[in-house]
């Protein structure tokens, strides 16, 4: 470069400019080529990645939730339907300051700590971009209005509508129909992720659980083009969801309501079966709970109260409550004795009110026993042993039998087994025998065990469903039918996989069955015969009955009564009192309904449980009889 000149040199300046302009042109061209290089990188080399990205921006596959199948009772009354629930949901992608927005929403519709906790959990789960995440469920009309007014200053806030399960009859059918629950993380591991992408609830209990597959339906989807704000611009492809199947149950909601009313505030269970089909007409477990709470959102305080309650409202006593059957077991022992040839209808035993095993001091009492060893039923045959519910008769009878023979016979009635067709999670009860005792307690079978079992006490356990089923076996004179919920459906259900029919009870002759039913009729109807001559339930339910009912009461001990002491209800706290049982069926000659009533800590079977059974059967039969 030449030294700087003080006078202008036009030519050299021009040359200098030319050189500079050329240099800058070259630099500019190089920069431009750099841009071209960048474009080639983006548009050619990385095109596939960006194409994918652009399509992912644009196209959303949205699953379409199927409508859950409806559940009807035998008369077409809706037991479970779907209704729209409006929820407040947030689109995270459109919200700059989440905390500020939630604080703002809190002033409008009160967001609870639990709402927030649930929201945070849902937010963490995998979701599509721009998918709204529910913050507050089940908005009231007033809350909707408040939100609508303020909508313009709440970007990213949406009101989402979804169909949720609704149980119109609420608590009264909670244990009979079961219910759905919100899908949890554990459920997600078990459920088909594709089928359940759009589903928020899954059948967890009862019919809802057993027929989940059919009730759920098939998920659909739509491919839509959405813009940056998550708005759908056009639908590209749609496969509609297939609604779940509607099912009709044997349940009779009117009978169910009547049964629940008959039970009233008492803890207990009632199971009523259609003797001709095994269909469950009513299944009450009291106390119940409102299953709708689990759909619209239950607070942890409410939930804890349900769990902690000493009355265990979430516990389905009808299928999971296992109790000693008490005297309701006696007809089975009687039939066993007849079948095994250990006794006949004519033989009489003297009942003095107590029984002793040879070489033992322990006294086994009749219910009529007194401290002074008065009481007892006098001379009793099998018929009388049933209608008077003589303990001493059955103490004597059971000692003639091998316990494994008795257990083997009783097993034919379904004790210790799960025989229901479509009632999930039933408890099997317990039918003890020698092998069981050796395994469970490491002890041999003592004669005292047999004595207890002879009157349905000891280790023997049954559920109300099993007792109802046993009542139905007597009603059907040995023919057995599996208890079932489903009456019909529009189309065959995938879950219906017919279990083999149960064989009839073997052993008793047709005459034995008839005479046993007669004895059970005497329990209810034999009256005005004088001291120790009436059926034990007659005074309570047999005075003004217009149809023939066969029944058997039972009273199950909860705590052991010390030797030499009388059972005194007043002295025991409520939860230590005896359970009251009554099993029955009617009409005795052409049975339509069989049931079992259990009242926890209710006291006497005849005085407490029998009137409830009568009320339920009345409700079922009287209109039918009147119609005839």
């Amino acid at each position, binding site marked *: 470069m030449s030294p700087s000149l003080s*006078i202008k040199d036009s030519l050299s300046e021009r040359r200098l400019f030319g050189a500079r302009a050329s240099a800058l*042109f070259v630099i500019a061209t190089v*920069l431009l080529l750099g*841009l071209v290089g960048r474009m080639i990188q983006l548009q050619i080399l990385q095109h596939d990645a*960006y194409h994918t990205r652009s399509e992912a921006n644009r196209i959303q596959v949205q699953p379409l939730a199927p409508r859950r199948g409806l559940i009807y009772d035998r008369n077409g009354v809706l037991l479970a339907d779907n209704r729209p629930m409006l929820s407040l949901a947030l689109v995270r992608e459109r919200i700059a300051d989440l905390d500020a927005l939630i604080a703002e929403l809190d002033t409008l519709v009160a967001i609870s700590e639990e709402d927030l906790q649930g929201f945070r959990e849902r937010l963490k789960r995998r979701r599509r971009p721009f998918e709204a995440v529910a913050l507050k469920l089940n908005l009231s009309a007033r809350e909707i209005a408040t939100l609508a007014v303020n909508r313009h200053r709440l970007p990213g806030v949406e009101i989402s509508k979804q169909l949720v399960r609704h149980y119109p009859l609420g608590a009264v059918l909670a244990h009979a129909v079961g219910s759905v629950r919100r899908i949890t993380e554990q459920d997600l591991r078990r459920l088909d992720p594709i089928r359940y992408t759009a589903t928020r609830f899954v059948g967890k209990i009862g019919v809802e659980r057993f027929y989940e597959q059919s009730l759920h339906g098939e998920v659909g989807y739509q491919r839509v083009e959405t813009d940056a704000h998550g708005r759908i611009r056009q639908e590209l492809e749609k496969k509609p969801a297939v609604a779940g199947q509607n099912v009709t149950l044997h349940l009779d909601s009117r009978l169910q309501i009547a049964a629940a009313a008959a039970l009233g505030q008492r803890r207990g269970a009632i199971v009523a079966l259609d003797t001709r089909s095994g269909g469950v007409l009513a299944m009450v477990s009291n106390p119940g709970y409102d299953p709708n709470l689990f759909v619209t959102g239950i607070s942890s305080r409410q939930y804890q109260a349900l769990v902690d309650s000493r009355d265990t409202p979430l516990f389905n006593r009808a299928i999971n409550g296992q109790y000693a059957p008490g005297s309701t077991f006696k007809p089975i022992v009687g039939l066993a004795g007849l079948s095994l040839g250990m006794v006949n209808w004519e033989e009489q035993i003297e009942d003095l009110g107590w029984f002793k095993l040879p070489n033992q001091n322990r006294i086994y009492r009749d219910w009529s026993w007194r401290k002074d060893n008065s009481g007892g039923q006098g001379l009793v045959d099998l018929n009388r042993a049933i209608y008077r519910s003589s303990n001493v008769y059955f103490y004597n009878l059971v000692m003639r039998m091998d316990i494994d023979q008795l257990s083997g016979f009783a097993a034919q009635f379904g004790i210790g087994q799960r025989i229901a067709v479509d009632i999930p999670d039933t408890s099997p009860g317990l039918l003890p025998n020698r092998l069981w005792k050796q395994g469970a307690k490491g002890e041999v079978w003592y004669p005292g065990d047999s004595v207890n079992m002879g009157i349905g006490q000891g280790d023997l356990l049954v559920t109300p469903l099993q007792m109802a089923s046993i009542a139905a076996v007597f009603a059907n004179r040995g023919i057995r039918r599996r208890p079932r919920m489903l009456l019909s459906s529009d189309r065959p259900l995938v879950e219906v996989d017919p279990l083999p029919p149960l064989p009839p009870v073997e052993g008793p002759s047709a005459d034995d069955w008839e005479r046993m039913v007669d004895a059970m009729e005497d329990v209810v109807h034999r009256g005005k015969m004088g001291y120790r001559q009436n059926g034990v339930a007659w005074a309570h339910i047999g005075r003004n009955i217009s149809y023939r009912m066969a029944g058997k009461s039972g009273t199950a001990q909860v705590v052991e009564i010390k030797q030499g002491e009388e059972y005194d209800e007043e002295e025991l706290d409520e939860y230590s009192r005896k359970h009251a049982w009554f099993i029955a069926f009617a009409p005795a000659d052409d049975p339509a309904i069989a049931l079992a009533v259990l009242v926890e800590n209710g006291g006497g079977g005849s005085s407490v449980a029998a009137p409830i059974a009568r009320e339920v059967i009345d409700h079922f039969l009287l209109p039918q009889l009147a119609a005839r």
Partner: protein
Amino acid sequence: MSNQDFVRQLPQSASLGASAHLVRMHLDPLLLLTLLAIIGFGLVMLYSASGGKPGGEIPSIFTSQTVRMGLALIAMLVAAQLHPRFYQRWAPVIYVGGVVLLVLVLLVGVKVKGSQRWLDVPGLPRFQPSELMKLAVPMMLAWYFADRALPPRFKELGAALGIIAIPTALIVLQPDLGTGILIAGAGLSLIVLAGIYWRWIAYAFVAAAAAAPGLWFLLQDYQRERILTLFDPESDPLGAGWNIIQSTTAIGSGGLYGKGLFGGTQSHLEFLPEAQTDFIIAVIGEELGLVGVLALLSLYLIVLARGLYIAAQARYTFQRLLVGTLTLTFFVYVFVNIAMVSGLLPVVGVPLPLVSYGGTSAITLMAGFGIIMAVRTHRAW
């Protein structure tokens, strides 16, 4: 006038005649055609970017941009009629006036979106004095070097830097960093064209590199964020990184031939922000692909080459420096905009010249091209 008449008037050659006609109107045919092509291209893309569909309702943005481009062409036409001598004579006045206006902006300007860039004079449309400085600064520098021996000496360099620094500082204070940098860049490129020693340029680069860490602390938080985002847009995909992720996605998904005009999903579904303004090149890349981008870049290259050619052909230092600088400034716009949208530079508010929606900058640019054409067509001093 019919072709017949035209041939009668200029019997030698019709094409030569059309060209000569334009020259007589003080317009440069090649430059004019190229600019018209860019404007036309831009209007079509704007039509698409503002949500228009063929045969559909004409977007209001498109209509107002068309009007603005008409105004810009008029500005060019007017600027071309004035003799270069006029610009040289009035350069100091225009510059000083511009600086005064910039001071006024800071004192009584209108604040829009947090920066004070506009002047609202009753009876006149609202305008940005910083736009005027895009022409005034090169004019003033060209005027300053016009009668001095080149290459400039150190003292002159200092004076020139002062001329650049005053308006730049005032604009940065608004704050409008983008325009400030462009004006400073225009001034510096003029100094390079003036023949400053390469050695000094090298020193300046070293000094700038050394000062860079210090500058970092002078930047505002949002400006730092933009720079950091450049290196890792995924760090904040829904915030600062959103623009750049969506623009590169738009461009990249266009591929070689694009998704077709009006077929861009990134822009039409509003994933791409600022699609009509600063980020319109992404719409071009998406809808017309690499081919469309190359076509536009070629047009810009023609403008660059033609501008520098006109500059080199000019007889006087003032004209050479002014034309060369205006041309380079135009190119810097193009480069910075595309580099920014394609993720090579931080996001600064620089529109794509003659294509992005926005009035003032197009009018300033076309006035600049009017001056370039004036230099080309007004021969005598």
